[in-house]
């Protein structure tokens, strides 16, 4: 584990609903946090690269094979929450340069959710 000094304390773990996303502001950037069933928390960018709107946190959480995923509430693209990789573009071209989502390192310590600065 690297130094924790650079990590932003975002919220209590209890503030996150299991298997549901929540948006957070980390150094002015919109991040989508997902608390999974096993208690782990993953963080990706909140901006949907296909729709150009900040809505990824409001998608439905699920799985594709073993990968934990989120599906965009806008046009149903699917991403791997661990890597940000777009698993299903729905045949669409993203507005942004990449179809993938940026990811942030997350640590849960003493009931608090800490997100790395980027």
């Amino acid at each position, binding site marked *: 584990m690297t130094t924790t000094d650079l990590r932003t304390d*975002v*919220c209590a773990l209890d*503030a*996150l*609903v*299991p*298997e*549901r996303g*929540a*948006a*957070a*502001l980390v150094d002015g950037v*919109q991040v989508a*946090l997902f608390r999974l*069933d096993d208690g782990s928390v993953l963080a990706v960018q909140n*901006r949907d690269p296909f*729709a150009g*709107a*900040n*809505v990824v946190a*409001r*998608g*439905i*959480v*699920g*799985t*594709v*094979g073993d990968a*934990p*995923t989120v*599906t965009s*509430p*806008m046009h*149903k693209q*699917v991403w791997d929450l661990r890597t940000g990789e777009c698993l299903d573009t729905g*045949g669409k071209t993203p507005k942004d340069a990449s179809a993938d989502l940026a990811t942030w390192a997350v640590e849960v310590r003493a009931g608090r959710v800490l997100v790395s600065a980027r």
Partner: protein
Amino acid sequence: MRTAPTPVLGRVVVVGAGMVAHRLVAGLLDRAPADGWHVTVVGDEPWAPYDRVHLSELLTAGRTPEDLALEPTVWDDPRTTLLTGDAVEKLDRDAQTVTTRSGVVLPYDQLVLATGSWAWTPRTEGTELPGVFRYRTMADLQAMQTWVAERSEALGRPLRGAVVGGGVLGLEAAAALQHLGASATVVEFADHLMNVQLDAGGGEALRVLVGDLGIDVRTSTGCTGLAPAADGAVATMRLSSDDEIPADVVVFSTGVRPRDRLARESGLAIGERGGVVVGATCRTSDAAIWAIGECASFENECTGLVAPGNAMADVVVDRLLGGPRLYTPAPEGTKLKGVGIDAASFGDVFGLTPGALEVTFTDPVARTYRKLVVSDDARTLLGGVFVGDAALYPQLRPMLGRPLGADPSAFLAPEGGAHDTGADLPDDVVVCSCTNVTAGTVREAVTEHGCTTVGEVKACTKAGTVCGSCVPVVTKIMNAQLEASGIAVSRAMCEHFAMPRAELYALVAASELRTFSEIVAAHGTGRGCAVCKPVVASILSSLRAGHVLERDHAGLQDTNDHVMANLQKDGTYSVIPRVPGGEITPEKLVVLGQVAADFGLYTRITGAQRIGMFGARIDQLPAIWQRLIDAGFESGQAYGKSLRAVKSCVGSAWCRFGVRDSVGMGILLENRYRGLRTPHKFKVGVSGCARECAEARGKDVGVIATAGGWNVYVGGNGGANPRHADLLAEDLDDDGLVAVIDRFLALYVRRGDRLQRTAPFVAEYPGGIEALRAVLVDDTEGIVAELEAEIAAHVDDYRDEWAAALEDPDKLDRFTAFVNAPGEHDPDLRYTPQRGQVRPAEPGEVGHHDPRVARLLPLTEVTR
């Protein structure tokens, strides 16, 4: 004449940059060797090749020129060059060069003429006046759009429009004028509309339907001249009947002529009625020059449709590569698009084949006209005409010239179509005429290329990618082939559940399982996805396993259900309170206006008689709803797969004609079924008399008052595939009506598939409407008491979702933009003014984050 060149591609120059030119280039990229050739396409329009078939959608469906562009990536290939906004002026056959207007000289080894056609206008006085348009190109439509906007502003009133020509394009133009806010009169010289494609009976049926749209139709009438207003712009049209009609905007849609000037001037053979003469190889009288599409004259005919042009492009691609392909004109069919009326025909429409028999079915109530033309022994299909309901067109058109396999009248009867064509079509039958794809090619996509979904088949074969009308037939062929190949046609909802929704519903209903975790553990795998989670949420809601906002179910809900509002393109939501039956007090109307003004929301009347407020941020939803609930409103479920609204007409309370209280019945039904979760959203309509002002037969459940009681229809609407509802029961009293609707909806909840609307639910119900009537009215399965009890329990259990949420602080937590910054909201939201209100700003547009400020900004210069 030169001798035929060996098939070496070399430098290919294509004159004209339309749809068939694009097809040719795409074909070359697909089939030609990797290098050693180059194709240059020259077009005089400023655009890359675009979809002219759907041109009207620029005006009627909010599409942009970019939306209509045909597969633009072909121009990224280093072997292709596209010159737009330049025209070929000169063709030097000896030097094998063409020269463009701007002076570019292009040498060619192979020249393809694809210059298309031009819109012919009769020589009539006044056709050059400002305000007179053709309806052919992107520029034509844009000029017309600008004219209507500017002229109506100058005149300070809506424009009165006139269209000369009652063919397919003329009707599209009239519909487009209406979309732009002008009225429209169609003037047709022949004695009926679409006289090339429809017989007199079909034309008359079409006239009635067009008249219903508010378009005035004058047949057997010509335009004899146009006269200007004082300021010089067109103002009136003189007719051959000596009438004069107002005409502030005039569109000529009077046919096309081949653009063959270049070929004429260079001495190529020209057909008697114009067009560059080609044979079945599509070669002109010069062996190095080919002609395809609307500029080519094959057997003294020039085509006016894209399908034969595409077939010619395919022939030239094959020939350029040394292949043997020949062009054979396929039987043509035409379908009216973009007008909101079904009209289609194919084959021998007028029954001209010796001995041909015509079987006609006219239903003046449903306003449909259907005719099949068959051979003298009534076995072989020769043609068909469909007006008002063209559902049979994609099924029957591929059967042209083949045995029908059933009595022709069986196809036309109201409950007909029992003989299901599709799966057993011979391999060589063309199922997609736009792209010339046969049933055999669709089967090969499954057997040779491993396609297992319609999307894959479309990508692999291009079938169904132009007008889309053949997709149902393509789907049937694909499924039959998958089964024949031993590949089970998957009934799985997704990777987590191997059964369709109805089976899962039955499993869950029969068990005690009431959370997603339990259900997926018992009947599925993994942790679910955006497909199965909302289905389970809907099933649990139907089984009354708790409020949609319960924490147990929160993770299952799509964002719309999660925050009880409908997500919009910028991440904000719409707020739509229930207005049962469309009846609202003045006091409540004032509240809606005040709330919208205070929060800067965009307001409009929705398509279902409610008032929608758009642009609410997630963090504003509770405050907005608190005010609405205080004023007596409740959630309109504009977000759920559930009852949206009950539309009704004025009814007997005020209307001179109303025979029953349609508003009262609308309110009763809306309050009964509000909040009911169903496989797809549904709407109900109640009309107070047979005039049908509520358009009830276009709804999932339609109720029409008659002197004898209520008639109830089910399975209308259909979304992208519009469908009229079928009569389920008639002459019901109030209680009888409610009971029948209860049973129908409860059965739909039980047996409907995921996201299956009632239209396919009814159409595909085994045994059809007759079987449904047996179950729901005659109780042949003995379940109507159960079905009624399910709805009764729903009614007892109903609580307004927003009222419940506002009383529960836990649930309000989710209405913050950021979990770590509750006071902040999405800083990227920006609005731009439009018609006195706001919409989300596009990049580069004038905008402001506060919609109340944005609506006051000076209008942006960007025209959209």
